[in-house]
């Protein structure tokens, strides 16, 4: 029986069954941990995103046995195609296998993977607070099947996305406009594309950029979107930027002949440099809930699955040691800092560079002319993301 006296007890509760939450729950369940994965939505469900599963993500997908499913549902892309404000192109061929799978499908695959690994999953369960006793998080408060229930656990993993309730409840919810973006996305069909994830640093859109990603297993379906930092988001709406891109850019024009097949949807994109210590006694935050999105590229699934694994490892150690104190869980933050701090540093330098159109023009030009420079850029872009 799941519910007894409106209190449910588990070893670990993972709030949110996006790629981060599902990956984390899968790793824990695989080790025999009594883990409850919960989500406020009913799956499958959409999420505003570029749909890209980079190499790091695919490692976890493979490790957890979801490779065949993703391969079937996703689009295998070669890497990035950047265009500069003067409309020059640069092809960035990425190593390894990379897919783009619509989140509606990908997240469902990952959720099912977690269940297959042994995690218990409940949907339509809205978490509104954490249970805190003597400074220690001891579970979450949620509304489930119309009842307000307490779910108790030794560890809570906050994987509830960019508006994280868990983060808010424990007072670790950064909202710095310089490190937070707004995104808008929809799907088009009949879009002629090469096998690359296109990133357009359009002169009319900077300092934001527009992406056109082939997504899913149907040829010609494009995930089109825009991301912009909130500190400069004050004159044109995201949709207006998109319209300008379609009207003026040689890369935007093809969308006129294409067919829009979904509504424009937006989302908040909290990026890594603002992330504080994503843990406290009895609780760890992963993915967007911990502001883990990479700046500039806006990649969120990779860091979500990576931090999911880190948090799962720390949780396993904590369960073994039966120690759920903040001091013990600091191990998670240490791993995160080791992996990401240097990355943020170099990306933030690039971020500044990429706010200036002349810089981008120059970089793309040199990239195409100078093989040594090209190699360096590729290293920075891709190899930094893979394991050291």
């Amino acid at each position, binding site marked *: 029986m799941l519910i007894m006296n409106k209190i449910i007890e588990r070893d670990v509760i993972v709030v949110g069954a996006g790629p981060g939450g599902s990956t984390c729950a899968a790793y824990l369940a695989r080790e025999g941990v009594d883990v409850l994965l919960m989500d406020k939505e009913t799956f499958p469900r959409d999420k505003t995103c570029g749909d890209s599963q980079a190499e790091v993500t695919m490692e976890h997908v493979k490790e957890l046995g979801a490779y065949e499913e993703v391969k079937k549902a996703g689009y295998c892309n070669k890497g990035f195609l950047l265009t500069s404000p003067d409309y020059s192109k640069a092809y960035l061929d990425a190593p390894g296998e990379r897919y783009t799978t619509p989140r509606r499908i990908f997240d469902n695959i990952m959720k099912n993977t977690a269940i297959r690994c042994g995690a218990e999953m409940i949907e339509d369960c809205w978490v509104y607070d954490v249970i805190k006793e003597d400074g220690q998080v001891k579970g979450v408060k949620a509304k489930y099947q119309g009842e307000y229930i307490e779910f108790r656990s030794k560890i809570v993993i906050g994987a509830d996305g960019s508006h994280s309730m868990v983060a808010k409840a424990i007072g670790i919810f950064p*909202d710095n*406009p310089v490190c937070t973006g*707004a995104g808008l996305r929809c799907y088009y069909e009949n879009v002629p594309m090469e096998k690359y994830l296109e990133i357009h640093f359009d002169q009319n859109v900077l300092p934001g950029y527009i992406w056109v990603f082939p997504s899913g297993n149907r040829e010609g379906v494009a995930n089109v979107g825009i991301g912009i930092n909130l500190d400069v988001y004050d004159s044109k709406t995201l*949709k207006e930027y998109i319209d300008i891109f379609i009207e003026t850019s040689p890369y935007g024009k093809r969308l006129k002949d294409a067919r829009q097949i979904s509504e*424009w949807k*937006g989302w908040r994109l909290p990026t890594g440099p603002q992330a504080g210590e994503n843990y406290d006694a009895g609780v760890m935050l992963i993915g967007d809930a911990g502001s883990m999105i990479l700046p500039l590229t806006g990649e969120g699934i990779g860091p979500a699955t990576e931090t999911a694994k880190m948090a799962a490892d720390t949780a396993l150690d904590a369960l073994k040691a039966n120690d759920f104190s903040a001091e013990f869980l600091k191990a998670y933050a240490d791993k995160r800092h080791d992996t990401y701090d240097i990355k943020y540093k170099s990306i933030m330098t690039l971020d500044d560079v990429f706010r200036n159109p002349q810089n981008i023009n120059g970089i793309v030009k040199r990239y195409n002319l100078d093989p040594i420079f090209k190699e360096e850029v590729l290293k920075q872009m891709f190899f930094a993301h893979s394991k050291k």
Partner: protein
Amino acid sequence: MDDLHKGIDFRIADKTFSQERQAVASIDPSICINCGKCRRICPTEAIDEFQRVICRLCPDCAEGPEMFPVQSEQYAHEHACSIACPLGTVPEGYVNLIAQEKFIEAYELISELNPLPAVCGRICHHPCEDECKRGTLIDKTVNIRGLKRFVTDNVKPIIAPFKQKLDKKIAIIGAGPAGIMAAFDLLKKGYKVTVFEAGPKSGGMMRLCIPDFRLDKEILQSEIKTLEDAGMDIRYNAKIGSKPSINDLFKDKYSAVLIAVGASKGMALPIEGAEAEKVYNAVSLMSRINAKIPVEIGRKAVVIGGGSVALDTARTLLRAGTEEATCVCIEDSNSIPAWDWEIEEAKKEGVEFVTSSCPTSILTEWVTVKGVEFKKVKEINCDEYGRLKPIVEDGTGFTIKADTVVFATGQKPDLTLLAKGADLNLNAAGMLDYDKETLMTEREGLFIAGDVTTAKGSVIDSLASGRKAALMIDNMLMGRELKDRTEHTLKTADAKEKIFPARLEKLSPQIMPEIKDRNGFDEIEIGFSEKQAVLEAKRCLKCGYENVDSSKCIGCGVCLTICPVDAIMLNKVQEGGC
């Protein structure tokens, strides 16, 4: 808390004091329900209302408009239910007490500022709902009025008896909303107050003009009885005019007199045929129907006017036996003066609307009405007293067939005798001149409130006018200049308090049950059930909370004692704090 100094200078009622303080108050925003009690009582005005920013970045997470971050921040402190109410009610307080199922506390909070909560729970035009951020930014406004009604329907009224603490006497002429409100506030301050009502029953225009299907007069009666039981002295059939006059009241040692007689004289337009049979003015027609006195009406009625009274009259006529009722107004279809929800309701019940049309004559056969002739309105001008002067277009005449005509073209106060008995003259518009700041007429100690002023004429506006008059009378008698603490400005809350629609509990708006049979005079709205009320109250976004400015707080602790949810703490100030 490193900015806390022990010594503090502070001002109360324009006087500066210095004091050593032992403690400073702080409010937990996660517990605070923004009732505003602490803000209103704080002697040093150290408490401000903060409004949380609502994120509206994305087009799809809510139905409301998208906003840039800067716009959202500005919107936060420019709009809120709490600054919309002319009476200073902060709806969030009682709405959240309802969400917590604390209905008695909710009633106490409502009745602290409003002597007629059950009446307002039915007929207030709810400016608070128009400003509700759930309504403007997310989906649908919280039904605040419905929640107020729920509380008054389900909690037995409790008002502490008024205690006389001062020996000064105040006379209030008129027991309508403005008079009752002023009496309520002055009684709470401890004055001896006498209300002189010309008629046999109180309530003024609320009783005379508002139809029973919107406000059951039993409700009005019982609210006034509660006030009378608590010690409000209302003298009925006591018309103040020539004998006794206002001069007589002053002679009788009343320190102040408030004229709140309302605008009870219906006006007819001076057009041909206005003296025919079955031509009425709305006030006299409505007061007769409300008093259950038979009135002769025909089958096809034209109501001239497009305000709330006109619509109420048309809907009443349909219930009283008219087969067709048409409201004709000079304004165009986008600016009919009645509230949108009133227009919607009226249309639902079959009221027809003809706009941009001005009546030129009533067509009669001897004394029987046959129709009304109209001309199209080109533009509307306005004179110095705010009276509308429509300009009609030649050659646009048309006739609407009718056998009954009702003028709902505004009401006027009848002040001739009152003014004479106070040695004052009326101005060209037939009104008393007065100071807009103090509401005092040219005669010292004689104030006016409600429809006698040029203020807006809804019930809540009249109540607010009565409240202002009470404050001004008190200020004059006490020789001080207290500010109206119900009026306040808002501050934008810190980013960490931001509200994200994506985080909200999924709750649909509750639908107010209504009666099906609209042929009778029973109240249309039935009112929320307890379950509905709690669910509706939970929809409140909790945009506001109160916050202590520690540089102004003297640590007196008064706020602590009145907080209904224990959100306030006193923090000790350390010796020699930096």
